[in-house]
């Protein structure tokens, strides 16, 4: 395992595109949260009734412990940025034919896939750390001292990590099957931003509940909408909380399936 980690590090440590996209991710994840925080501050500090209404409707989404939920929710919309890295890391191997060379040099096919699993795991870890740091910083900006319940919703960081790992695994599967970087990126981003939302909308219209089992929806349900959504539709909001536990299970099953498929195909197909 250490050898796989060392080799993957050798591959990425001098890869400018990797660090470039990581820098964009490192800026965009905290950036989007600080932007939301700043927008919230402007709204609630408005003179007159507007500010008061906003404060009443929105509550305090950026104070502990709700900040864990808020930051995880905001970050979950931007998984497509690190997905670019994941797709590039796998499609590069096919473009350069280094997937073959790694096997020729002495890796087993299983070791090659494990090394890619490690890549997805490491990127998930980095993204989750960024989300964690953003939560803590924003939390302490709005609340100068710690309180006993401040960590109570920190489990959202774990849920966010699981969601990110699942969706990055899906991005990996697309890159692994398509093999061409631009086509894989196009397919994934189109699916992430447009196709699944459209499919979900159509299924909602016809009242089909299985829309929650669409590839991204399975893990999106891990992080329900922010607390103020509950003021508009309490029944749906409460149901979304009830969905979290079963969807942890579904996400783990779904992600495991993705990797089993990848390992299986890679062990059988010609390289």
């Amino acid at each position: 395992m250490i050898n796989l980690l060392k080799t993957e590090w050798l591959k990425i440590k001098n890869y400018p595109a990797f660090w470039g996209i990581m820098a964009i991710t490192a800026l965009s994840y905290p950036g989007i949260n600080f932007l939301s925080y700043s927008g919230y501050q402007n709204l609630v500090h408005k003179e007159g009734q507007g500010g008061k209404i906003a404060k009443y409707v929105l509550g305090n989404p950026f104070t502990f412990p709700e900040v864990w939920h808020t930051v995880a929710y905001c970050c979950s919309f931007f998984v497509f940025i690190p997905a670019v890295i994941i797709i590039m890391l796998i499609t590069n191997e096919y473009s350069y034919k280094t997937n073959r060379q790694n096997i020729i040099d002495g890796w087993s096919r299983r070791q090659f896939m494990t090394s890619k699993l490690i890549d997805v795991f490491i990127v998930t870890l980095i993204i989750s750390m960024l989300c964690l740091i953003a939560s803590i910083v924003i939390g302490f900006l709005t609340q100068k001292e710690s309180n006993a319940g401040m960590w109570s919703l920190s489990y959202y960081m774990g849920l966010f990590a699981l969601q990110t790992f699942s969706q990055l695994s899906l991005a990996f599967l697309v890159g692994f099957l398509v093999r061409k970087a631009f086509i894989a990126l196009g397919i994934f981003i189109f699916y992430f931003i447009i196709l699944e939302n459209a499919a979900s909308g159509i299924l909602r219209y016809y009242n089909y509940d299985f829309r929650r089992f669409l590839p991204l929806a399975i893990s999106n349900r891990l992080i329900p909408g922010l607390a103020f959504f509950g003021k508009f539709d309490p029944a749906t909001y409460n149901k979304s909380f009830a969905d979290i536990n079963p969807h942890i299970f579904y996400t783990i099953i779904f992600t495991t399936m993705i990797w089993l498929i990848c390992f299986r195909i890679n062990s059988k197909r010609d390289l």
Partner: protein
Amino acid sequence: MPSCLLGMKQTIILNQINRMSSVLTLNGITKFYGRIQALNDVSFEVPEGSVFGILGPNGSGKTTLLSIILDVLKANKGNFLWFGHPGSPEQRMKIGSLLETPNFYHYLSAVNNLRITNSISGRGSDGDIADVLKKVRLYERRNSRFSTFSLGMKQRLAIAAALLGNPKVLVLDEPTNGLDPVGIAEIRQLIMELKESGHTIIMASHLLDEVEKVCTHAAILRTGVLLTTGHVEEILVDDDVIELSAANINALADLLTQLNKNVSVDTKSNTVHITFPKGTANLGEINSFCFNKGIILNHLILKKKRLEARFFELTSK
């Protein structure tokens, strides 16, 4: 011990000795790409310490065969043994290989690419990386990105990767591809040196001159079928062809028909060719026969068919 058991024991020992002396054994390798059969029941052995050339025209299955023994492709039928054991990652680590094209990370330097080879295979060290880069004349460009290399430089880096850690077995697919004449001569010299130091080299090539100069053994493939395999001398020599010349070649030809009916006259080179079954020609006997009959030869040689001629003969059937 009963005699039948003794016989079995002897057979087992003989098999073991046989297996030990073969670096690679192929048993009925068959490969299909869809409906197209790329390899058809190919079997041969590569003896230890040999330079084994795999020859064939384009599309004959050379690269497919090497890809199978390196686990890049899966055979539909048949199996192969490295050092008497089924292929495994541990065995591939000990084999230096160059397959088809140089496969490296374009954004990494020569040194960093070789560090990855070292990390995966465990072959060599940082010092060895510098040594192999010097050997292939890339040391000055060691910190340049692979994407900035010319085709010849990429090929030399691939050879450096194969040589890293001085593996005892090398698999080289068209090793001189893209090299200039000096580079080709250098690689040929390198292969000769490796052969002298006891390395086993399995080399696919369509450059017959190259194979003829460096290989001890060869296998010839045509459209996935193994046509022949064995020692290069055995493949090269078919019949014994003697080339003779004298002042009057027509008189010489008439005289030689008394010895053998397979006589032909080449008026362009002013020579007579007489063919004998493999290993039966005796130059001294022919010389005294002609001398005793009053014809003095001014040219007498035993011609081996060049690999090129033999190759065309085999592959055009």
